């Protein structure tokens, strides 16, 4: 069984500084998207039960080669990287084209393709669905549990008011939510072995892709303004009332 996990390189959100409500990205260390890490953990958990090989797929600039070690340390067996400077801030439709082309190109045909529900930086939540559409594969979103069987998977979807259990034939695309698991902390030995795991690196033109106009320009990216309400309460009762009226408790 071949599981591919698509993971996006993003700036470490905990280390981004905000200046004049603008995020400062300079000199911020790179990491992989937090929900992508949940997707990887889900893949590794399946691998621990069945015979499976986990491949990380990532498209981005040359830094990805180093950043992906994080995924290789956390249990992926190998990686497949599409590297080009133009892929750094690529728009979702372009990223989806690139990933779909890479998936088609892979020697070991993927049975299960996992994504995080949204990326850690933009959270547009489009890439998984777009890849499924391009490859004409079934897709299940909002996965909070995945059970793989013979040629199919049973996926629990966590929706706003209910849980839905669906069966999907493989190969399929599944996008997972953060609550699906808790990603493991890699051991020191696994971290040191990460760099020695197999990796395949391709350039976009090897996949017959033209990345002209791939970049989006961000015109404005502002931190939300939080207005403190400065409500003064004189008793616990008043506090409870205030919190209830804000729908923070007692829903």
């Amino acid at each position, binding site marked *: 069984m071949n599981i591919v996990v698509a993971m996006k390189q993003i700036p470490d959100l905990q280390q981004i500084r905000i200046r004049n409500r603008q995020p400062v990205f300079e000199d911020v*260390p790179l990491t992989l998207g937090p929900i992508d890490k949940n997707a990887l953990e889900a893949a590794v958990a399946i691998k621990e039960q069945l015979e499976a090989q986990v491949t990380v797929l990532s498209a981005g600039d040359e830094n990805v080669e*180093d*950043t992906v*070690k*994080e995924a290789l*340390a956390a249990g992926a067996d190998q990686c497949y990287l599409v590297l080009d400077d133009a892929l750094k801030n690529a728009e979702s439709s372009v990223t989806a084209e690139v990933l779909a082309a890479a998936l088609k190109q892979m020697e070991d045909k993927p049975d299960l393709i996992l994504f995080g529900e949204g990326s850690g930086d933009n959270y547009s939540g489009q890439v998984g669905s777009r890849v499924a559409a391009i490859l004409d594969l079934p897709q299940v979103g909002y996965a909070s549990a995945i059970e793989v069987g013979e040629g199919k998977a049973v996926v629990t979807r966590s929706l706003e008011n209910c849980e839905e259990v669906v069966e999907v034939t493989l190969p399929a695309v599944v996008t997972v939510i953060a609550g699906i698991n808790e990603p493991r*902390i*890699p*051991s*020191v*030995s696994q*971290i*040191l072995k*990460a*760099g020695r795991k197999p990796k395949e690196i391709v350039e976009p033109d090897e996949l017959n892709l033209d990345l002209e106009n791939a970049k989006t320009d961000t015109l404005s990216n502002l931190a939300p303004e939080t207005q403190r309400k400065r409500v003064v309460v004189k008793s616990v009762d008043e506090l409870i009332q205030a919190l209830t009226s804000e729908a923070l408790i007692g829903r």
Partner: protein
Amino acid sequence: MDFNLSKEQELIQRAAREFAEKYIEPIGHQIDVENSIPPEIISGLGELDMFGIPFAEEYGGAGSGYSSYVLAMEQFGSASSGVAMILSAHTLGLGAISVFGTEEQKKKYMPKCCKGEHIASFAFTEPGTGSDPKQIATTATKEGDFYILNGTKRFISNAGFPGPLVLMAKETESGRVTAFIVEKFCEGYSISEPWEKIGMHGGPLLDIYLENVKIPAENLLGQSGFGYPILQLGISYGKVGVSSTALGGLLASYKEAVKYAKEKTHRDEPIGKFATIKVAIADLAEKYEASKWLVYRLGYLADTLKDPMQFAKEAALAKDFVCEEMINASRICMNVHGSYGLMKDYKAERIYRDSIMGSQVEGVSDMQKMIVAGVILGMK
């Protein structure tokens, strides 16, 4: 000159930080009050290979050197200096076996220790001596292919965990000090109740009683009469652990003070607006940064320096500076907290008590200065 961490080092640091923040920090106060560390913490650290970071892969270690070890230790020391003390004393004991042990000794003792299933100790101090090997009273008497050990060892870290103990004893025949490997809890080995220390709670400190402990002659470490060089080099490596634990304390002081300066308000403004608090925060940042680079460099030197005297000097220099700065930093952190800093509800109180530990262990600060100046001036 390159001050960047490699990706691997960055990930090791992050793994240690995540484990510390997720599992140790939330029970930091509990560890302090109960003076013990839950076994899940020890086994969790073992699974992440934190007991074997600097040791060779062929003996079960991670093979990542002391330069990675200091990065992890800083994070553990920041969450709980008791946890860091266990790792530090363990690495000191195991380090002696890794440097001076025979192939058989290394194969026998290191793999389980690197996984944290066994925890190593190093025993020099006795009721009658903490700095002077000439005064060692524990005896080793050769009987055929065995040695018989008798004596009391004081203030021994990790004495209550199973695993190997590197022990300094005086050979009755020659009067020379020799190092031996003793398996803790063998026949004739017993321990006291843990000492109640001012700080570093959870880091277990006990006395050891040896009563006719019989060990095979092959458990001699290094050579007969080689105890002093093993002690000196071992302690130099040990100072890498003590320094990085203290660096963790500096980091904790810095983080707690910054947090409080932003949270605590006077007339609706955070106290960080006051010039006095600003000076305190800047002082903490300076102390932390200076100590950090000294400790990271010491980790690098532990991996690369060949001359034991030079290394002894560098280790003494860093240990003295960083441990003293941790005391200063914990005091500043307490000042930022005002009276709240004196209360057990705040971490500042624990950091303050922990801070005095580093400057006393493995030689008090003045003794470190004697080593540093002795090497620089070429005079003992």
